């Protein structure tokens, strides 16, 4: 079985488990909506909203929701020693990483599909100026974030790391992706800061390549039944 087919099968397996109960997706969507609502209230409900800053606020919801996705997709493997079975299967460890990454990314895209309209509604955020660019920056940012998240979720699952500490491991490492994505969002929707937009997109692609390569290589070291 080649690596790509194995990865797709594993991702489909995770998503099939998710479709049966929507346990992870239900949880992260409610968490995401809560984060957006709390931030909307904290920033004041009477004003004109944070403007382009809404994109950065939405990123906070994606990050926390994403971290919960990483934890949940890996926690599934801890039940009935499923992880041991997965590691005994005649497939590369890289395929396991890619499968988990694909499942995590799919869940994060579903989360973004629900949270973004809520943010647009609550913050009076006009996405119509550059919807494709918004989707592109979000996708690229999520790929880098999910690569590091999937790697350390494996460490957390194998080390019985206390809950909540995965976010502590992932956030500092992914700060460059978060900073670049939010700066690009501001450059896209705020005409006063448009000059930093062009170079930023290629930097974001480079970050994704580096994070994907580093996580793919290190996953083999960390995953253990």
């Amino acid at each position: 079985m080649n690596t790509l087919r194995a990865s797709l099968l594993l991702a489909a397996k995770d998503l099939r488990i998710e479709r049966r109960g929507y346990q992870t997706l239900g949880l992260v969507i409610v968490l995401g909506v809560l984060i957006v609502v709390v931030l909307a209230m904290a920033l004041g409900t009477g004003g004109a909203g944070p403007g382009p800053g809404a994109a950065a606020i939405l990123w906070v919801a994606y990050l926390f929701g994403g971290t919960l996705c990483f934890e949940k997709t890996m926690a599934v493997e801890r039940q009935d020693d499923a992880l041991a079975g997965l590691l005994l299967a005649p497939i590369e460890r890289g395929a396991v990483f890619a499968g988990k990454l694909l499942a995590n990314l799919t869940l994060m895209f579903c989360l973004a599909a629900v949270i973004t309209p809520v943010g647009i509604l609550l913050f009076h955020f006009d996405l119509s100026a550059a919807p494709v660019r918004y989707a592109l920056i979000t996708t690229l940012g999520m790929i880098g974030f999910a690569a590091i998240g999937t790697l350390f979720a494996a460490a957390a699952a194998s080390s019985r790391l206390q809950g909540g500490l995965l976010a502590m491991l992932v956030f500092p490492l992914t700060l460059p992706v978060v900073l670049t994505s939010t700066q690009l969002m501001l450059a896209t929707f705020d005409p006063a800061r448009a000059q930093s937009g062009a170079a930023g997109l290629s930097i974001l692609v480079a970050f994704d390549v580096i994070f994907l390569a580093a996580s793919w290589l290190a996953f083999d070291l960390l995953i253990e039944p």
Partner: protein
Amino acid sequence: MFPPRHGLIPMFWTITLLLLALAGGLLAVYAPTEATMGEVQKIFYLHLPVALNMFLACSVVFVGSVGYAWQRRPAWDDLAQAGAQVAVLLCSVTLITGMIWGRSAWGHWWTWSPRLTFSLMLWLLYVVYLMIRPSIESPQRRALVSAVYGMVAFVDVPLVYLSTKLLPDIHPSGVDLDPAMWVTLIAWSIPITMLTAGLIHARFALNGAVRGAATTEPPVIPTDHRPRMPEAHA
């Protein structure tokens, strides 16, 4: 490493402290006072060498992490941990001295300029390295997770730098110094580098000793020599 009985370590620390005292003397009497900023500018002689040595400490974390991932010997993990402890210390000093300088130069303790943001993100990276370690119970897993984190964190350093370049900059980009200022800067760089190396070595030895103490079995007291309970009097 050098065995303490040779007296090399006390000699190393004596020389470091003497050079530090000499650098302090040069700062007080020889280094000229900068025209616009006055005395506060002198914090620069500490700030720049400490900031450069911070990268040295981060490199030690990387070397220790790669060493552990490759050979699985606990001494490499001790070295990586020592590097991270010193990196956090140096990064804290860089941040504090930078903030004092910034308060005088820009009127604010903090601005989101690229280099300040970079130092803060670097500090967070290595503080998390130290904070996460006690959360993992198994020493082997702790060392392995830390090693992977240490390697990814080192790869992350240039990315952090690149990402902060997107922010607007007000930090001085080049150093234009008087010859007397250069002499003072070099006089500070040597003992600070020695101090960094000495601290990493000291922490490395201490981490090894702590690990040794944690893994050593408690001494078994032979049955015949156990202290007896005093007999109760009727």
